[in-house]
């Protein structure tokens, strides 16, 4: 905002109060009684505000603050929280990278072993599936089984068995997770 031909703007008054010399403002003040009054009042306000006393709390304020700190969650001699420790973060990153690097290196150095494990696992899974199918085929020829087999076919029965087995394994894992104690401390609110 700049000075209008009629009156000073807020910025002009600010400059005046800050002691910034502006010729246009002073020239205007010489001719405008309203702005002179406004400027005089603003100056009075600023002077009175600057003269307002600085108040003080009752003596012993620092002691009361320290007492409030001591009863709070953070002790006076605060230990740097672990989550902000740069050293712990660096160590975690180094360990993670080291673990990943070691895993990759070992895998590259033991490819034949990994392949044999892979074959073994696949064979085991295949065996399980075949065993499951054989079990189903060996089941008594009940009306229910006959009806299921007829309606879904061999593949459908296999899928049902796989789904039941997967749900059973997932349930076991979930129970195990729930039963496992937390490894990291839980921070309680103060």
């Amino acid at each position, binding site marked *: 905002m700049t000075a209008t031909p009629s009156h000073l703007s807020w910025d002009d008054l600010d400059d005046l109060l800050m002691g910034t010399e502006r010729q246009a403002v002073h020239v205007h003040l010489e001719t405008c009684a309203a702005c002179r009054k406004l400027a005089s009042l603003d100056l009075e306000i600023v002077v009175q505000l600057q003269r307002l006393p600085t108040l003080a709390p009752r003596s012993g304020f620092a002691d009361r603050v320290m007492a*409030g*700190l001591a009863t*709070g969650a*953070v002790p006076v001699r*605060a230990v740097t929280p672990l989550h902000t420790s740069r050293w712990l973060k660096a160590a975690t990153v180094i360990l993670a990278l080291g673990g990943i690097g070691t895993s990759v290196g070992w895998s590259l150095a033991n490819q034949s072993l990994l392949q044999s494990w892979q074959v073994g696992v696949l064979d085991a899974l295949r065996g399980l599936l075949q065993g499951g199918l054989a079990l189903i085929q060996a089941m008594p020829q009940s009306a229910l089984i006959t009806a299921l087999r007829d309606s879904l076919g061999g593949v459908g029965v296999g899928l049902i068995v796989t789904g039941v087995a997967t749900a059973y394994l997932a349930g076991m894992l979930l129970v195990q997770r729930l039963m496992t104690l937390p490894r990291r401390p839980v921070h309680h609110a103060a």
Partner: protein
Amino acid sequence: MPPLDVRSAADQEIVALAREGAEYAYRELIRRYERPVFSLIYRMVRDRETAEDLAQETFIKVLNAIATYRPEFKFSSWVFKIANNTAIDHLRRRELDTLSLDGSPHATTPESVEATALQIGSDRGSPLDVLESKELGGEIEAAIKQLRPEYRSCILLRHVEGRPYEEIAEMLDLPLGTVKTYIHRARTELRLALQHLRE
């Protein structure tokens, strides 16, 4: 035992010591800022007892969060920001009465009235000057109390604490233009109060 030159050390040096948990550093920070923080909060909430509680709460927040303070910002700005937010939060939670030049509206005994009344004015000058100064100062104090909390914060930080516009904008998380508008509007309202006195 604190170092002998702790009082002449810069804020950042004291903060660094406080981060290590040095109690003397905590006390030095409180000593440096207790009066301006209390003054600002007192003029915001207009009750001494409440102002003391809020000032105490401010310093506890400051010292508890000292590890998160970023040194690239002025420590004083950070402290005033927390103080102002604490006062504004209190005002938003409660509706306050407007009169307390003559003591807190909650004061019930003469001693508590005197303890909570604002003491203003100067001991110098003629009795008429003193009365006029008191009346004018009283008008300013009363007029400040009538301002909206946002205007009050800005005008006190600008002309009582002497903070520049940019710093106030940073403290209050407001655009610079908004701070200037608030201060100008606050001065306009204070001007009206003074005009009434002069007529």
